[in-house]
């Protein structure tokens, strides 16, 4: 285990973030409900935030606050994304009476 680099805390956080990202992606890719896809995307964004914070904490210049700021802005953007995304889901539900992505395939080539 030590040879795998788990001695550095940063690697641990990065791996957790990677796993969370993969879980979020899996959610976005395998669930049928649009809301769940959005939840998956939120998880992915959060994983990215974890990365940013971890890099900030263990980076060479934490006092520059770059990673922290990135994470804060990312949180704000994620909030905006959630609002618009969920608004779209509601609008789509009103149009098609479903939130299942398999059934919403009117825009095809």
């Amino acid at each position, binding site marked *: 285990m030590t040879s795998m*680099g*788990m001695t*550095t805390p*940063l*690697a*641990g*956080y990065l*791996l*957790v973030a*990677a796993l*969370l*990202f*993969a*879980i*979020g*992606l*899996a*959610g976005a*890719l*395998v*669930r*049928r*409900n649009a*809301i*769940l896809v959005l*939840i*998956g995307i*939120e*998880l992915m964004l*959060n994983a990215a*935030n974890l990365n940013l*914070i*971890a890099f*900030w*904490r*263990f*980076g*060479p210049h934490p*006092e520059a606050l770059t990673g*922290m*700021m990135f994470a*804060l*802005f990312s*949180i*704000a953007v994620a*909030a*905006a994304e*959630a*609002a*618009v995304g*969920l*608004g*779209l*889901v*509601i*609008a789509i*539900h*009103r149009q098609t009476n479903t*939130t*299942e992505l398999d059934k919403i395939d009117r825009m095809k080539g």
Partner: protein
Amino acid sequence: MNVVFYLLAAITLAGGLAAVLLKHLVHCALATTVAFAGLALLFLQLDAQFAGFAQILVYIGAVAILIVFTILLTRGSELPKGGVFSRTWFVGLVIAAGVFAVLAWAVLESVRGIPQQTAVPAVTVHDIGNALVGRYVLPLEIVGLLLTAATIGAVIVAMHEKERRQ
């Protein structure tokens, strides 16, 4: 690396997994909340107080509520008939696993260059405030604009169109 970290990581990942796997949408949303809370605690563990509290405020206070509202407004709290996973779920799973594999590989490959444990950064909320309205003031303004636009956009998208009057 200590017990607290493992515990928090486990909570977060369990929350995430539950969010993806549970059948009931509301349960998924609540599980997501658990993941969010776990992440916030991880942030605290990383000495990022401000980010951690902001995470709770925004994700648990706003995003989670938004999600459950949406679930209720789209009648998502009723169980779907044809299963919760899409027909080709296997493909998605493989791709997600691939993503994790690549990411983990990247992390483990570069593990030698990763910095070791460092001292706790002495960053106060005051510093963050100064940075926000100093060096990062432009992004801050842009995010403000973005949030305004997103709010208006979300309201307009979700709003009922008025009945056309003749």
